[in-house]
């Protein structure tokens, strides 16, 4: 447990530091454009990562940096992408909210709410015919549950018994609106269940719970086929986008969120288990060191290549 939690803390801090550095790079004007951070939501990607193997396909949203990192995409080309560098995973064409790194099974973020869900179904469908039986996973927010495409995708996957993991990160907010005010029945797992999809709501701030659940579901999906739905309860500690003043949130809510957030919880659990404060802090420091180095390298790289800007529209 201790080993695992230390590893999880390490993985979560890599994401956290990446996101905090990104926030700083927004502030300095180096990263331009809309950026959606996953600060506070790191336990999901970290816990889920182990369930994926080569050939699996993961689709995320604009809030997807953490999932890209968890899937193994190196930090420097991620920073490069955010910074609009030629060395970015998409040479600067994707940007923070629409990047992809297919070599790592990261099929991409998506800036259209819900749109990744049918695409993941298609990736699983492909796997049925290419001999891979790949697992496809798609991550989306709880607000996306009200988007028609998500309903269609879930039914399609259920009907075809395709191995698709629907991972719903419930951070309670749809941009500036509380999602619970936008539904009558707050139990979102009732929806996939109604379509015949096994569904569960779990503590999305505990990487161990996430790991166990997703591994189980992934295994089941690979064996029998058939989709599954996992709702991760979590919170974002920052605005919907960088620059969001969050006037819609109370101090109390944010304080409570800070108590729940996964890194503080993991650190506290480790301390309780007798890990020295210095050891815990070293994790943070190591993550930051790696992040700073990656960011510096990305900043030093050449800008996106304007000379090829018209290429790759067509085959």
């Amino acid at each position, binding site marked *: 447990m201790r080993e695992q939690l230390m590893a999880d803390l390490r993985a979560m801090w890599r994401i956290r530091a990446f996101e905090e550095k990104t926030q700083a790079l927004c502030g300095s004007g180096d990263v331009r454009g809309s950026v959606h951070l996953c600060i506070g939501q790191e336990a999901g990607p970290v816990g889920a990562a182990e369930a994926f193997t080569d050939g699996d396909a993961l689709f995320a949203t604009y809030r997807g940096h953490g999932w890209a990192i968890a899937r193994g995409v190196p930090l420097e080309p991620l920073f490069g992408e955010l910074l609009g560098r030629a060395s970015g995973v998409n040479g600067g064409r994707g940007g923070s*909210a629409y990047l992809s790194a297919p070599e790592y099974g990261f099929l991409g973020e998506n800036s259209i709410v819900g749109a990744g869900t049918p695409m993941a179904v298609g990736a699983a469908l492909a796997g049925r015919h290419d001999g891979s039986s790949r697992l496809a996973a798609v991550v989306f927010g709880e607000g996306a549950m*009200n988007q028609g495409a998500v309903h269609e995708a879930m039914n399609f996957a259920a009907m075809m018994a395709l191995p698709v993991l629907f991972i719903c990160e419930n951070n309670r907010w749809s941009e500036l609106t509380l999602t619970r005010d936008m539904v009558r029945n707050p139990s979102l797992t009732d929806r996939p269940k109604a379509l015949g999809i096994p569904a569960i709501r779990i503590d999305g701030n505990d990487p161990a719970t996430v790991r166990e659940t997703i591994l189980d579901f992934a295994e089941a999906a690979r064996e029998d086929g058939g989709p599954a739905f996992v709702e991760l309860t979590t919170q974002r500690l920052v605005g919907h986008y960088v620059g969001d003043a969050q006037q819609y949130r109370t101090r109390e809510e944010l304080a409570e969120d800070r108590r729940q957030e996964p890194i503080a919880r993991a650190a506290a659990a480790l301390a309780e288990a007798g890990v020295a404060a210095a050891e815990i802090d070293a994790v943070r420091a190591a993550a930051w060191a790696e992040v700073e180095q990656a960011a510096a390298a990305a900043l030093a790289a050449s800008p*996106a290549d304007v000379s090829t800007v018209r290429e790759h529209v067509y085959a």
Partner: protein
Amino acid sequence: MPEGTITVNYSGAVNAALWRCLAELPETLLYGEDVAKPGGVHGVTRGLWKEFGDRVFDTPISESAILGSAVGAAMMGRRPIVEIMWADFFLVALDQMVNQAANIRYVSGGRLTAPLVVRTQQGNSLGACAQHSQNLEAFFCHTPGLRVAMPSTPQDAYDIMVSAVHCDDPVVVIDNRTLYFGEKQEIVTDRPPAAIGGSHVRRTGPGATMVTWGAITHRVIEAADRLAANGTPVTVIETPWLNPFDTDAVLESVAKTGGRLAVVHEANTTAGFGAEVVVRAAEAGVLRQPPVRIGVPDTRIPAAPELAAALIPGTERIAAEVAGLVATG
């Protein structure tokens, strides 16, 4: 500040127009994602929920339900004003505009109507991704039954919203978010709602006629000013209404400017509304020189600002292309 005027930026102008419509027309409703309590993701609808209560409300992320319910409410006598946060998001629910709203009056022979307004904004802004950068006015212009406007100034933003809400047709009003927080201007707010349509002559000169709409109008005017400074003044016609489109004003001007026409928009060039404008001039026989179309070449929009800037027409490119046109014949 004289009576009947206010000093506002573009976003304030839209807000004032919505305020006026909600106050004057009890049959109006205003809703969309984040528009009520939070006052809109761009702050445009701030204060309206507090003032007008449950006629202003937030919705789930359900564009088909937003647009479809607006159509249904309009059929029953309301005047819903709804927001699609980015024009790109219309694409998950275009059915309700093209297959539903646009058909209602025609198919029922006028027994049913759908007087709704959809507010949206579009175009590229610094670092925006390909799914948040498109200019889709041509889709709406190709759909008979819909009205379409793309203002670029606080006064037009105000006037067009008021006219749109009073109009008995479904109207799509397309802003550009880069305009929302421009400089404040004094605008007149006490005129009765104008009929929809019309255009503005923004610059005059015999060199050519430039036709444009939306945010890029400002670059076109800059380009025209450069050309004038270089001794070749041109005419700039801004057509904030694309449907109805002020064809007469364009044709007259082209005839007066040596049959030289340039059209500038931020949308992709191929099959953009610019083609329609050029063809109207060609059909009318007023072109004397090959026309110039300036738009985004047919690519997607990359996120890196330098890449996007290489594609989206800038003042320089516009001025250079039009200078070439003026030099012909």
